């Protein structure tokens, strides 16, 4: 079936089986590899991206549900040359190790900060439920608080 949506600001149409997970359309049809496959069962968060601003696990999200919607992936998180506050903070804190889980965590964090601009540790524990095998949670927590600061500073600058 034909599905149309916006991906990182660009209109897209794909012709795929309606139950194809969004993840595989993004990765293999549209060739954006930043969104990762970890489990395929909504259990790890590696495939997290935004659909109309909500963080969702794209491995378990059928393509038919994105008709007319706005999708943002890690490739579309930053605008132009400047990195998104979350990516900047991730760099400052040198968070990634293997890096495989990181796009999913950054997307989950970016969506959380849109709703909770200044999250407490409890907010972070509750909202960030992805899995990182390398154990980067300690730096991630610092980076999340830092991203909130960067975002606040950016908002007051503009």
């Amino acid at each position, binding site marked *: 079936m034909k599905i149309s949506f916006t991906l990182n600001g660009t209109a897209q149409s794909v012709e*795929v*089986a309606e139950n*194809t*997970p969004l993840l*595989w359309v993004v990765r*293999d049809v549209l*060739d954006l*590899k*930043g*969104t*990762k*496959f*970890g*489990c*395929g*069962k909504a*259990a*790890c968060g*590696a495939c997290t991206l935004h659909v109309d601003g909500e963080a969702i696990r794209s491995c378990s999200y059928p393509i038919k549900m994105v008709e007319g919607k706005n999708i943002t*992936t*890690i*490739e579309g998180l*930053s605008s132009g040359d400047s*990195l998104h506050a979350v*990516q900047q903070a*991730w*760099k400052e804190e*040198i*968070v*990634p*190790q*293997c*890096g*495989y*889980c*990181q*796009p999913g965590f*950054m997307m989950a964090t970016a969506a959380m900060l849109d709703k909770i601009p200044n999250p407490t*540790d409890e907010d*972070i*524990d*509750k909202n*960030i*439920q*992805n*899995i*990182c*095998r*390398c*154990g*980067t*949670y*300690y*730096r*991630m*927590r610092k980076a999340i608080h830092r991203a909130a600061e960067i975002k606040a500073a950016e908002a007051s600058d503009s």
Partner: protein
Amino acid sequence: MTENNKKKKGSSRRKFLVRTAIGTGVLLGTGYLTRHIWRRTIFTEVDKGESPYLGDAATPGIWFEVTPENEVILYSPKVEMGQGTHTGLAQIAADELEIDIEKITVRHAESVSTNVDPFATGGSTSIMGLFQPLRELSATMREMLKNKAAEKLGVAATSLAVANGVISGGGKSITFGEVVDGVTDWEVPDVPPLKAMKDYKYIGKPVARVDLHDKVVGAPIFGMDASLPGMLFGSVCRSEKIGAKYVGADTTAAENMPGVVKIVKEKDFVGVVAKSYQEAENAKNAIEVEWKVERNWTSQDIEEMIEVGKGKPVVIQKEGKAKRILNNEEGIISSEYKSPLGAHAQLEPNGALAHVEGEKATVYISTQVVKITQGEVADRLGIATENVNIKPTFLGGGFGRRLHTPNAIQAAVLSKAVGKPVKCFFNRKEEFQNDTFRPPTHHLMKAKLSDDGKIEAIEHNVSSGDVMFGSALIPVDLSGFLGADVGAWRGGMFQYKAIPNHRAVSWRVKLPFATSWWRSLGLLANTFAIESFMDELSISAKKDPVQFRLDHIQDDLAGNRLKNVIKACAEKAGWKDGAEGNRAMGFAASTDASTPVAQIAEVSVEGNQIKVHKVTCAMDPGISVNPDQVKAQIEGCIIMGISASMFEKMYVEDGSLAPTIYGPYQMAQMRHAPKEIDVVLLQGVDKPGAVGEPPIGPIGAAIANAVFRITGKRLREMPLEIS
């Protein structure tokens, strides 16, 4: 192309090779180091952590390429799986080459360039093995460039200086890129003196990871991300049952399913190639496979097999008369400990993209064993090894999971069958069921205290599934030769050598499924047993547990390094024995591959919930080439260790390994990670040592020891649960 080999004199055994190629600048390579017989390699590798780079002397590999744009490409023989090796190597090269680190690009060496490590990336050996050779190689390269610059500029080499890739003197200057242009005759000088440690700009400094940018923008750097024009997707049928053998398959239902390109039946497997991943998976699920299953294994079978006394024993450490003293029942303290079967659970599933064209094959893959993967693919396809090019990608986690790469073979077979590139990878259930697990263990500890509260004799019996034996890394079956599996007993010997009588025995058990390397091999389980028992003994002896350990450490280099980390950790954490309310500290220490580590966990217990609030860690890895990445490895080990010792457990149910998904296979998440991790780095020797695994040792015992202080309950089984 010109080749120029020059024999080195004196202490250096390195042979250098230089090749020039138009347009790509100079390639400096080397093949070096004498061959080690396997036994020595294995013992030093695993026990002491002395790990020379095992270069293949016959075929020197390419290390550097200088581009006309004056950038240096460093081809790394070691793969990057998160441990920061590429960053460390770039630091080392930048310092001796005299070029800014930003101008160095690190790439994975491909198997055709021959610079790949013939052994593996793993065992915490990458930086320590390459620190000396890469400094020498880089310094030699710098001198070669300088000498050639002297010729080109008409200025004496002695009056030239090198800074950030530019060679200048006598009022003239030339870049590395300009120097290499058109040169075909390189002279290799003797290895020049290396800089003093204090003069390094990058080595020893917390430089940001070289792959940081790619990893925050989601660049397609992993094996799973590899893609080629016209690529198809492969999927291979696998049994859920342990020990199942493929007999045959009825593929009728799958043949006409949407997207199916071809069903491929081999003597040992059946697979499908389709246009998309989903279509390949759907068709695979429609294939009816006949398996031969000899036994329906249960968890109970495994537990019974793993008991001390059931396997084959080998004494791995013996001093004094521990056995005789501990045979006498009187006054003997004894305890049993257990650790479960553990999965690697790395986030990127194993897979490969293969493209077979006639007699040649190219494979993109996340592998820790490039050479082994190459040989296996060549064997299966019946083509020459040098016709198989393995292109290693970044690994979405390694931890020992990528020492076996069957997907490379299967992707290659499928690609050959359809004449197109084929990508083939495990789904998560297959990943869990086909893991090469951390084996379960059973430990029997015995000791006797003397009247003054010191340990007179101690014994550790550990029974474990295999770790090294049966691994693709070991080319021949060494089990008869070595007796005990050196991986299984890693961490199982006593580091308290001042105990007059000590003895350790390793019992070897062959389990019906693959068990192998898992970050630190046996260290996590063995340290859990020994350090929990040391805590029990300190309580029996009515001694402070930190002092109790110090009292049993010998006065030699290893002993002093261990004492120093123990003291530094206790001081940094403000060590206090005993609980305050529902909160307490727990202490544990280990030595792995010559790197001593001490940890103090601050834990609370609420109901039966254990929470780790803070971990203080002191470690002495020798020179920390990149202290920030050493810290990152410590943090990662602590969190992975919390995960493994508090939550993770595989079991066997109705002949199958379970669970098969995250969640039921519970792992540490954000809420379980300590909010504070305080690290102290010491340097007790003037060379870099093991970093990536040693700090996972103490954490399980440190937590259990804290829980005992709060609840009075001694948790002797991982995952730690208060019943």
